């Protein structure tokens, strides 16, 4: 009995001790404020190193500590939802697509900061501001966007006597020749981000859209969309291999880097990785502007933005940090650190020397003239988010490829779009 009582006493003591240890931080920390920032693992690792370096510089200047946590991109959804539910977590988080809209009530207004930065650095591209500007104001600051050029193996194209494609029809023609040569092209038709990006791009270039500008009216079931599906079917049968049906975001990179593939629609990460690992294939890879179509030239992009939770206790510090990240010097080294992957949403940063220094990057900043966030011409609202994450668009194509008549596949897609809108309309008004 005695021993048990003593045990209880000592364990209670131990418990109290440990809880005290992690409730009260050691005094050295308590004096310094800590700013925390959650972002995804950058596709180009060196870019994260640069970000951490800048965070440290800022920390020293401001006399605080800055903690940058990075996790795998897809894990962010669960993380953001958990932080919003529990009203606790990082001060600053990376957002994208519909996040500023979905979390509108939870995020701090950024209007002042956006105006300040816009005045200083040549103004924001409208496609970038669209993704952060909700009906109640700016809920995030555009951070960087990702260009999706055509990434191709120049050697394969030369061997076939072909030029880099200027239009999607050029690509189809070239692909047919290249496939015979043993070097098919590849556009993902599966449950992955790249598959969505490519479909939006091709659809827009053919003059189609998924939603009308109001963001409430389905527009996917059109003749133009039918043309796109037919184009996909032709490309799949004669210029690609069935592997595109199972691709994830990493598969097309491997496809190009293995030397088998001749063309993919992707960010420049395969080239950057090939250079970083000094793979010989780096010399053969080049980029060209995303192809055009009868409806002009358009390309989908993802705009990554920075947002501050309302529950944060460091709102003004976080804003200072964002301001610091956008100082000319910082942002320029951020572009260099990411080897040209990080495209600036502010016009004056587009004159960075990196794009002139390597001809393979030359077209990248010009993509700003014709990129849109997914959902365009509608804003990236909750319905767009559902259409994107449910992979409705690539599934329309996959259904058609599996033998469903194009009209029926599009009707199915229209049903799915309507379902996504239903969910959104019920939450409208709450914004």
């Amino acid at each position, binding site marked *: 009995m005695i021993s048990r009582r003593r045990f209880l006493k000592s364990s209670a003591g131990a418990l109290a001790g440990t809880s005290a240890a992690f409730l009260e931080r050691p005094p050295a920390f308590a004096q310094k404020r800590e700013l925390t920032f959650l972002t995804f693992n950058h596709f180009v690792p060196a870019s994260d190193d640069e970000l951490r370096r800048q965070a440290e510089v800022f920390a020293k200047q401001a006399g605080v500590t800055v903690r940058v946590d990075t996790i795998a991109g897809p894990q962010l959804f669960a993380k953001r939802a958990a932080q919003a539910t529990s009203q606790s977590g990082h001060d600053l988080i990376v957002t994208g697509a519909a996040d500023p809209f979905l979390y509108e009530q939870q995020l701090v207004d950024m209007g002042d900061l956006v105006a300040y930065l816009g005045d200083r650095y040549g103004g924001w591209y409208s496609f970038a501001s669209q993704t952060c500007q909700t009906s109640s104001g700016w809920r995030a600051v555009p951070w960087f966007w990702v260009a999706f050029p055509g990434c191709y193996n120049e050697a394969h194209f030369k061997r076939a006597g072909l030029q880099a494609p200027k239009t999607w029809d050029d690509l189809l023609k070239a692909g047919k020749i290249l496939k015979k040569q043993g070097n098919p092209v590849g556009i993902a038709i*599966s449950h992955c981000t790249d598959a969505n990006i490519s479909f939006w791009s091709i659809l827009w270039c053919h003059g189609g859209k998924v939603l009308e500008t109001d963001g409430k009216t389905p527009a996917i079931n059109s003749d133009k969309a039918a043309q796109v599906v037919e184009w996909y079917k032709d490309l799949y049968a004669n210029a690609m291999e069935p592997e595109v049906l199972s691709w994830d975001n990493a598969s097309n990179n491997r496809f190009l880097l293995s030397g088998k593939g001749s063309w993919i629609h992707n960010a420049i990460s395969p080239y950057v990785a090939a250079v970083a690992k000094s793979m010989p294939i780096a010399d053969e890879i080049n980029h060209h502007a995303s192809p055009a179509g009868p409806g002009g030239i358009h390309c989908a992009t993802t705009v990554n933005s920075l947002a501050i939770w309302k529950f944060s206790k460091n709102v003004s510090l976080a804003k200072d940090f964002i301001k610091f990240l956008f100082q000319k010097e910082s942002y320029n080294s951020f572009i260099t650190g990411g080897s040209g992957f990080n495209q600036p949403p502010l016009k004056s940063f587009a004159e960075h020397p990196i794009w002139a220094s390597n001809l393979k990057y030359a077209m990248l900043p010009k993509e700003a003239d014709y990129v849109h966030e997914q959902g365009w011409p509608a804003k990236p609202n909750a319905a767009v988010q*559902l259409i994107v994450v449910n992979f409705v668009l690539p599934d329309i194509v996959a259904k058609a490829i599996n033998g469903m008549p194009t009209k029926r596949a599009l009707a*199915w897609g229209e049903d799915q779009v309507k379902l996504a809108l239903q969910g959104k309309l019920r939450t409208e008004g709450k914004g």
Partner: protein
Amino acid sequence: MAVSQRALEATGLPRLGRLARVREWWEQEHVFGYSLIVPALALLVGLVAYPFGMAIYFSLSDYWVGSPGEFVGLQNFRDIVGNEMFQQTVYNSFVFSIIAVVFKTVLGVWLAMLLFRDFRFKRLIRGAVLLPWVIPTALSVLAWGWMFDSLYSVVNWTAIHLGLINPPGPNWLGMTSYAMTAVIAVNVWRGLPFFAIIVLAGLVSIPREYYEAAEVDGAGSWGRFRNVTLPLLKPVLAVVILFSTIFTFSDFNIVQVLTRGGPVNTTHLFATLAYQIGLTGGNLGQGAAVSLFLFPMLAAIVFIQLRYIRRE
């Protein structure tokens, strides 16, 4: 002593000290019984019941990530039932679970019988067979993804070089039936050891005399299996099938890593669809409805099964 003290008190003889009285009170069977389950009860109420209640509330409300919603009754359930994607998911889940559990049961019993024998390196081999079940799923499934890769698939490479298939071979994760086969195979791979080892435990507990008796009656090995092993394994099998069915129905990692529900939603399971709609899509209410859809049915099955097991 406990008994005798109680007897003493009943006769109203010497009065006990306060501490002793507390101890006496605690020695009563029901008091002691309740007090032992208090920690477990507190844990389950605080950390399971509350979140579960909240999840039910999600499913009955118009809740989006970042914006708490109003009560909407069964609207979310009505919405998902009408959605073709969800209907497909229900179908997938049953196909996936039934096939996987059948395979695990048959192969599990077979493997358990093999492991039951006396052989060299017994411990090592038993350990090796357990491996798929003990290594972290989140990582082992990645390895499977790499094995089924469209470009570098070792499965296809082997089959091609053995002359079994023509190059390039099936695109495992891109074609409907192959993708389902692949996710089922990985699920069986992972779940089989759990089955085998519990059935093995069941085999160990069967008294040897039964077999000897059967042998004396002239039963062959099939006869012994049918008349002795199988009937005696029944209760174990009931338990393990029950557990496995629950685990299989709620599988998440395998599909999320390998196919993300593709191709065209033909491998989506309840958990992956709930995650997709509720978290990546932000519609928590519908996501919760998807994940809770089967709960009443499973609960009923478990209730019946447990009664059956207890009666056995």
